[in-house]
Structures are given as C-alpha cells and as structure tokens.
C-alpha cells in the first residue's frame, strides 16, 4: 500500500520529490563532507528504525477528521513547521527528516491501530501525536509494547509517567496551583465554583484544585459540577452560580460546549470584564476563542504556559514563521506551541545520545534544554515532563490573551502530586 510519505526540505515542500537525482548527485559530490557529518547508519540505528544514510522517518498521528480535528490541526501544523525548520538547519544527525502522517479520526481505537501501523510497518523513529487523554491512553500500550517514543503535546491530568512518552504539555499541577494562588493573592478570591466537562481530565484537575483551595489555602469550594462532553444547556448551573455568588468560577469545559457556555453566561448578564465573578479557565486557548467569539469571552482569565501574544524574540520568530507557512489569520494556542517543541526536543535528545535508538535517547532526556522555545525556555525533567512557567492571560475582544501574570520560576512537573491524590 502506498504510504503518504512526504518530505520537506529547506522550507520548499515538494522540491525533494522532484530533485531525487539532483540530491543524489549532490550527495556524491559532497560524499566526503556529508559522511563526515553524518555518522554511519548502522551505528546510530541498531534497532531497525526507518533511518537511512540521509533520511530518518518520523510519524505524525493526530485527528485531522472528526470532532477533534479543529483542535488537533494546529498541532499537526506546528509539528510540520518544526520538522521543516529542522531540515533547513541540517536535519538530525546529518539526516533529513521525513514524516508519515496518519489520521486518528477522533476515534480512540483508530489511534491505536495507526500507532501500531507507524511502529510496525513504517518503523518510525518518533511519533508526534495524540491529543485527548483518551487517545493517549489508547496508544500507550502499543507504544510501550513496541518500544516507540511518543511526544504528547496536550496539557493533561497527570497520574502517568510512561518511559515511552515525553509530555511536552503541562500536567495538572503546573496549570492549576499557581493560578489558584494568583486568584487568592492578587484578586483576593475566597470562594470558588468548579465546573467542567465530564471526563478524566476535568475531574482530576478539579480534585487537585479542591485540595489546594481547601487544604492548602483554607478557602472554600461552593460548588462542583460536570456536564457531558458536547453538552449545550448551562442554564441550571448559571442559576446556581447566581445563587451562590462565588468569587471565582474555575472552568474546565472543553470543546464545543464552550461556545454554549460562554454565550449563555453572557446572555444571563455576566460581564467578565467586571470580574464579578472572575472566570478562570484552564481549557480555553486562542484556538477555542476562534469558535466562541472574542466578544463572548472578553475579560476571562486563562492559565496556560503559552499565549500567542507572549513578548519574547523566540515567540516573535515562531509566530512569524507559523503565519508565513499557514496564513495570516492563523492563531496559535498553548497546545500548538507544545506540539512545536516535540520535534526539537527529539532532535536534541538524538544528538545528545548520538543515536536514534529509543533506549539510548531515553537515557538522555533528563536535563535536555531548549532555548529557542516560543514559551521562552524549557527543560526536560527526569519524569519526562517539562519544567515550564505558568502564565495567566486575560482574553481580549480580538481573541488574543494579554499576559497579566507569570510565575518567576519554572514550575516543577509533578504528575503524582503528594497530598493531592
């Protein structure tokens, strides 16, 4: 079966395919220099990965069809952008990076099937992919069985630490603790209303939030509620919020439900810019605002590690490159940025290990730094999560966030937080 193998070189997609001969000629001419730069394949690849003398193949596995496509396409774009930039900069261990893209189709079993295909048929050296917790849980046994390495971009609930996954997003405590502290200290919040979609990530996040609010800070949770994924009727919870008057609504509503929730809040007379109550979300990025509409969320606060408006030279370059590649009207959310980190961290680990072998690069993850991260600077913890800052942004009517707070230190990733279980 013909695979969808594509490659990008020097930013001009497609030149590769036409220029096989040119490339061959060039590689003959440059044989001496190229081989000096690129260590021989049998040395850097002892486990039969798809590595040749001048290419290495990786897999991209996200949903580009189905309900999750709207969220995951940004990640696909970021990963492709990172791969083409890596190729432009000379590739990995002297090898150009090619990718095989598979569609998880928003369907968890399909994710498992495609992950198996990438590892068994294509022998990819890395998989950049999965988005929802459910899809990660579906591919995890496959990745572990065939000893692959998954670079997982989404902020998630923690309680997991696989030797075959690098978590480039935040685990729950990195998103929650600092933002609750901020709400309590900067905004003087005393009472909190926890609201989320009904699945593992919001439930775990709210469990941690409740422990932190009640046990660590001695404040009060006045309500905790969950609605099924895709739920669109929030009138009853809005009435309860009116009744209990919390200082903060802590929201982890995901996907399409957000559109209904924020519109109904607005229709019920809440103006988020008045901050009464203050709305703090851990699930609305710039991507979601595109669907909800900036005017409906103006004034809400989000706790993330990355906002498109972040003011640093790395991010300026990243945003410019992203818009050049995919158009000026693109927005970049937290997960998109985390997905962008995946290929770069893989490259760093491979080069540090001097090998594509999964077992060798696994040894090298701890302590790997990436200075060119759009979020500023990240470092891999020995638990395969990233040290990164927590930032709080306030939504503007144009759909962007204005950063109002960031932690001074990098937050330590702690997927199994003591005292929060």
């Amino acid at each position, binding site marked *: 079966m013909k695979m969808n193998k594509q490659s990008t070189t020097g930013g001009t997609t497609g030149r590769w395919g036409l220029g096989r001969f040119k490339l061959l000629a060039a590689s003959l001419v440059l044989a001496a220099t190229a081989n000096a730069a690129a260590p021989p394949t049998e040395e850097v690849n002892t486990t039969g990965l798809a590595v040749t003398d001048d290419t290495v193949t990786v897999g991209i596995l996200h949903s580009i069809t189905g309900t999750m496509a709207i969220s995951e396409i940004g990640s696909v774009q970021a990963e492709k952008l990172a791969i083409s930039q890596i190729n432009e900069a000379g590739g990995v261990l002297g090898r150009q990076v090619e990718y095989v893209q598979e569609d998880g189709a928003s369907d968890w*079993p399909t994710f498992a099937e495609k992950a198996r295909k990438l590892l068994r048929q294509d022998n990819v050296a890395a998989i950049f992919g999965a988005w929802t917790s459910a899809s990660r849980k579906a591919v995890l046994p496959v990745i572990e069985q065939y000893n692959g390495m998954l670079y997982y971009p989404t902020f998630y609930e923690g309680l997991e630490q696989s030797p075959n996954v690098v978590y480039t997003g935040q685990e729950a405590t990195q998103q929650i603790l600092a933002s609750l502290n901020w709400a309590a200290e900067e905004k003087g919040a005393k009472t909190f209303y926890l609201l989320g979609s009904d699945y593992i990530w919001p439930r775990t996040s709210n469990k941690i939030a409740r422990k932190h609010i009640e046990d660590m800070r001695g404040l009060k949770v006045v309500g905790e509620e969950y609605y099924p994924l895709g739920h669109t009727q929030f009138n009853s919870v809005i009435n309860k919020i009116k009744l209990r008057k919390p200082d903060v609504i802590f929201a982890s509503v995901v996907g399409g439900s957000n559109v209904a929730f924020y519109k109904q809040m607005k229709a019920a007379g809440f103006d988020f810019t008045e901050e009464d109550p203050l709305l703090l979300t851990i699930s609305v990025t710039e991507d979601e605002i595109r669907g909800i509409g900036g005017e409906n969320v103006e004034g809400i606060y989000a706790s993330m590690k990355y906002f498109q408006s972040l003011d640093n030279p790395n991010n300026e370059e990243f945003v410019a490159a992203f818009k050049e590649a995919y158009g000026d009207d693109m927005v970049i959310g937290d997960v998109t940025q985390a997905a962008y980190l995946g290929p770069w961290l893989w490259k760093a680990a491979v080069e540090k290990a001097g090998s594509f072998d999964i077992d060798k690069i696994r040894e090298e993850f701890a302590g790997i730094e990436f200075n060119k991260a759009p979020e500023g600077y990240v470092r891999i913890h020995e638990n395969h999560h990233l040290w990164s800052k927590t930032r709080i942004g306030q939504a503007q009517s144009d759909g962007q966030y204005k950063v109002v707070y960031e932690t001074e230190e990098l937050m330590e990733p702690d997927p199994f937080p003591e005292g929060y279980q």
Partner: protein
Amino acid sequence: MNNSALSKWFVSREGVYYLLLALLLVVILPLVLDPFRLNMVGKYLTYAFVALGLVMCWGKAGILSLGQGVFFGLGGYCMAMFLKLEASSPENTAIQSTPGIPDFMDWNQLTELPWFWEPFHSFSFTLLAVIGVPVLLAFIIGFAMFTRRVGGVYFAIITQAIAAILTILIIGQQGFTGGINGITDLQTLNGWDIRTDEARTTLYFICVGMLFLCLFVARLVQNRKLGRILMAMNAQENRVRFSGYDVAAFKIFVFCLAAAFAGVGGAMFTLLVGFMSPSFIGIVASIEMVIFCALGGRLSILGAVYGALIVNAAKSGFSESFPELWPFAMGALFIGVVLAFPDGLAGLYRSYVMPLEDRLFRRDKDKGAPVAGTAASKPAAANENDDEPVIDNYSPEKS
C-alpha cells in the same frame, strides 16, 4: 445430514462459496499478510459478526436495528472487564491509592471493586456473559417492543436511542466503566500474553473459527422452517400472524440471535485489539455496521462477511493513503453502492458473475455435481440439500 449429503454439499455451489471463504481466511490471507495486517483483518472480521446478525435480523426478518453497536459493545465490555481485572493485580497496581482495582477506578476515587465487576474474575462466567448479557438486553427490548407490535421505523429509532443512552451511561459513569477512555491496557488472558504476534495470530484463527460457527448457525436458521417464517414475516407480517404464528416470539428470537452474534464479535474485538471503548456503542458506529451489511448485500450471509471486510479494508487503505481526504472517498463508495447496487455486492455477484459461472461450469454438469445448470434459473432451483427445500426467492445464491 448424512455423509453423502455432506460431501454433496461441499461440491455444491453453496459449498464451494464457503470453501472459498475458508480458503481465503485460513490459508491465503495468513500466508500473504504479515502479522500486523492479519490482525487488522481479524479486527474487520469481528464486525462481520454484527453484519451477519443484521442479515438475519434486517435482511431476512425485516427488523432494522440501528443499535447493534450496543450488543457488540456489551460483549466487548464483558471480555474487557475480565481482562482488566487480570491486568490489575495488586502487584501491577502497587502505585495506586487502592492497589488491586483497575487504574481508572483509582483515578475516580473508588476504593473498592463495584459489585457487578466481581463475577468477572471468573473466565467461565465471562464467556457466558459475552453472549448472555447482550441476549438478555435484546430480549428485554424485543419483548417490550414486539409484543406491543412496535416495528419498522419506530423500532429503528428506539434502538438508536438505546445506543445513545448506553453511550451516555458508560461515559458518565467513568468510575465504573472507564468513561470515554474505555477500558485500556489489557494484557493477558489467563496468563497468556495477548499482545504478542503469535497470540494475535492465534486469536485471528479463533476469530475465523467462531465466525464459521456463527455462519453455520445462521445458515441453519435460514434453511429451516424458522427461516421461512422470518422471510414471510418480512413480506406479509399479518398473514403470518393470521396463520397462527406468534410473530412477536419469532422477532424476539431473531433479534436475540443477532445480539448474540454481535456479542461474540465484540468479545473477539477486545481480544484482538486489546481494548474496548464507548465509541463502538454509539449511533455512528451502529449505523456503520448497517452499512457493512448493506454493502455486502443484506440478504446474503456470506455477503455480510465480505461487506465488513471490504468496507474496513477500504477505510484503512483510504485513510493511510489520503489522510486528509479519506472520508470523502468512503462517502463516495457508500453512495455509489447504494445508488448503483441496492442489493449490495451479493446482488452484483448474482446478476453479473453467476451467469458467467454457469456458462463456465455447465460443461461439468455430467460429472455429477448437482450444481450448475439449475442455478441459472433462480427461484427455488439450486438447492443442494434435497431434504431441505429452498426457502426463499430473495437469495437464490443460498449463502
């Protein structure tokens, strides 16, 4: 069927079709495909169980169920619960707050195993439940609907609603069911690691064996008086009722039969794929299963198998080759089939390939195979089994 009848059957047209299918599944595919692809074929075959049930229920008896995913899912969940309990031994789950219970229960702050999980420690109970639970639910639904003479579109809508309800229930009760993640990370079956290539290949053959068993049962039902009553019910329900038959009982029976097939398919799916998730229970999955059946030809038992195989192979193939466009290709395939060949592949085969076959094999007629010449004249003709006369005019290929 005595010995000579049996050997006669094997050289009959119908027998040849079954032999060809067996040859394809047992010999050709395992030789041609690597273990990874073979496992995928095994997965497609698990849908064939559902499609087979739909042939009996919808094609023969005219009861369209848009909720077969429910029974597939229940069978699958029963098996998954057993495997999950085995995977959650106290040693494996030592890092949890409560070791010895499945990981998702621990995440949801459950501290002990819910009562309905307890029996799934037993493998024999699980095997019973794989068929028993779907059949019980089908019986309850069937009894409630058919004795009140709810049928046709209304029944289809109700089955669809049940699929939606069960999905919401499973997703909502995530502490007990694993929620939207499903039950994942299944490892061993009575100590046998089901994730290795050898195990998956063995399971593939078990799956093929189970499929033939179900095909046999379906064929048995079809060729008995029972099958004729089902077909008659489809055509003229009231006449059957006025002839003194209890229509509701027959409908309940065939609906339960379809549920049992689907349950077996679901359990095989869990074993072959290594997890179970609510996405197989939902409305979309259930409708997809009707499409497998429609594409194969809803009157043809063998067509169901080919329908499930072809649709799923096309789905994998298209999505690997055109990850951004494959849903359109699938859509085109379905529209094309429904518009051009409403009787599905089996209908296509009957009208184009069979006449060809007849011309080819007519010469062999003298050799004693009671096959050829008769088959061309469709109605009531080519039935090989002299003691079991032909029962329907709709599916002369008798598969």
